[in-house]
């Protein structure tokens, strides 16, 4: 809808003009460029260069999501910029969705920018481009959309600092549960059931990680893309829906 687009555009503009984004991009660029040094150290072995570059894009993409995500939502609520918006023919759902798309666009743009620097490094090192990395970045953007939806959901119930910490914890847990589940299977019993529950309910982020395939030029299993996309889509919709419900009930 037009209104969601207007809010998204506004959120994007606000995000992209935040100086913190430039600091993050600066550090990201430094990190990715330093993988050139890694290339020296590894005597031309491209595997570590790709690993470091892609890891950098991932970490800084998440950092950008966290910084932009938590500050934007906090500002809306604490600084009453929402009051202007809600007096107009704008539903609270519009606000949540608009914020989401605006943030996603800003983070996706940052990620793509970092990917371009990465491809530059690879080109310099190898003379060709890493096409697999483009896929890895697409998967990362799917993961980021889930993560941003999570941030928005959390900030509709808890204050920004706490929601940031929660989001980071959930991020680690999201990568941890597959191995935890394997361990729990051995133990069995209640802990197995409990960990299984966590495994299925909490966002499971391993599926968006095709970096290990890309770095070693291994073929990526076919159905992974569709499954990852569906999972990201469904989970994002769930989180945003719950965020809208909670936000509708919130006193302003």
């Amino acid at each position, binding site marked *: 809808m037009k209104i969601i687009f207007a809010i998204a555009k506004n959120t994007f503009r606000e995000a992209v003009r935040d100086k913190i984004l430039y600091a993050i991009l600066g550090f990201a660029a430094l990190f990715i460029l330093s993988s050139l040094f890694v290339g020296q150290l590894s005597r031309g072995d491209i595997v570590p260069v790709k690993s470091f570059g892609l890891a950098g894009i991932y970490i800084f993409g998440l950092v950008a999501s966290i910084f932009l995500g938590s500050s934007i939502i906090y500002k809306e609520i604490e600084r009453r*910029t929402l009051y202007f918006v809600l007096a107009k023919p704008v539903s609270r759902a519009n606000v949540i969705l608009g914020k989401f798309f605006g943030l996603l666009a800003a983070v996706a743009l940052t990620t793509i920018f970092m990917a371009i620097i990465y491809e530059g490094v690879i080109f310099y090192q190898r003379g060709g481009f890493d096409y697999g990395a483009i896929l890895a970045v697409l998967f990362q953007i799917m993961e980021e959309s889930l993560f941003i939806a999570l941030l928005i959901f959390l900030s509709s119930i808890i204050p920004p600092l706490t929601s940031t910490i929660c989001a980071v914890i959930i991020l680690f847990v999201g990568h941890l549960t597959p191995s935890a589940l394997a361990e729990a299977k051995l133990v069995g019993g209640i802990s197995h059931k409990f960990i299984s529950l966590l495994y299925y309910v909490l966002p499971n982020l391993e599926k968006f990680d095709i970096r290990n395939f890309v770095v070693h030029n291994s073929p990526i299993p076919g159905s992974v893309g569709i499954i990852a996309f569906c999972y990201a889509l469904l989970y994002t919709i769930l989180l945003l829906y719950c965020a809208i419900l909670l936000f509708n009930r919130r006193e302003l």
Partner: protein
Amino acid sequence: MISIKNISKKYGGDTVVDSVSLDVRNGIIFGFMGQNGSGKTTTMKMIVGITRPTSGTIEIDGALLGDMSVHEKIGYMPEAPYFYDRLTGLEFLRFSGELFRAGKKSDAKYDELLKKVGLHDARDKAIQMYSKGMKQRLGFAQALVNDPKYVFLDEPLDGLDPIGRREIKEMIKSLKASGTTVFFNSHILYDTEELCDEIGIIDKGALLYCGPVKEFCANGRLEEKFIALVEKNTTE
């Protein structure tokens, strides 16, 4: 017509607004007055649809709040507004305009509006750079972006210098002249006396008076009458 029937707002055990009813005819300037913390802002937030009343109904132009078409006709200026700091004044007005079904107006219209509030020169500066008075004027401008039939202003003259106050007061008068209904909160009684046709007085969440300002003042100053009424309410 703005028709408010028995609206209350409770936060937990606290009753901030207690069964307030009032009607505001079209085309007048209505001043809503009260001490700090009397419930003025909460009432206005309920009228413009930001806060949900615990009970009671609000009708604007015959339609209940909740109907988005109501929002198309109103403009709201919050108290001591904060903004999106990194937008320019013009970008902010454009954004406000885009939120309406009618969509964006031409930049010329926004320029005109900015001129009216005295911000034309600063339209391309980031809002971060605006002084408090400038922000106040921008808040006023965004309330008018959709040529609303009803305008709600929360402390519109707060923080303005004398010339600014005069300018805003002139604009409120010209809004009335063009048929817009103006509802504003204030605790500055001097301006209220000058501008308003009718007033409402709220204290500790309860409506103490609602009616023509001349009648209330009768043969005294608004300020004295107001203080007397509020003190009487306190002792009761």
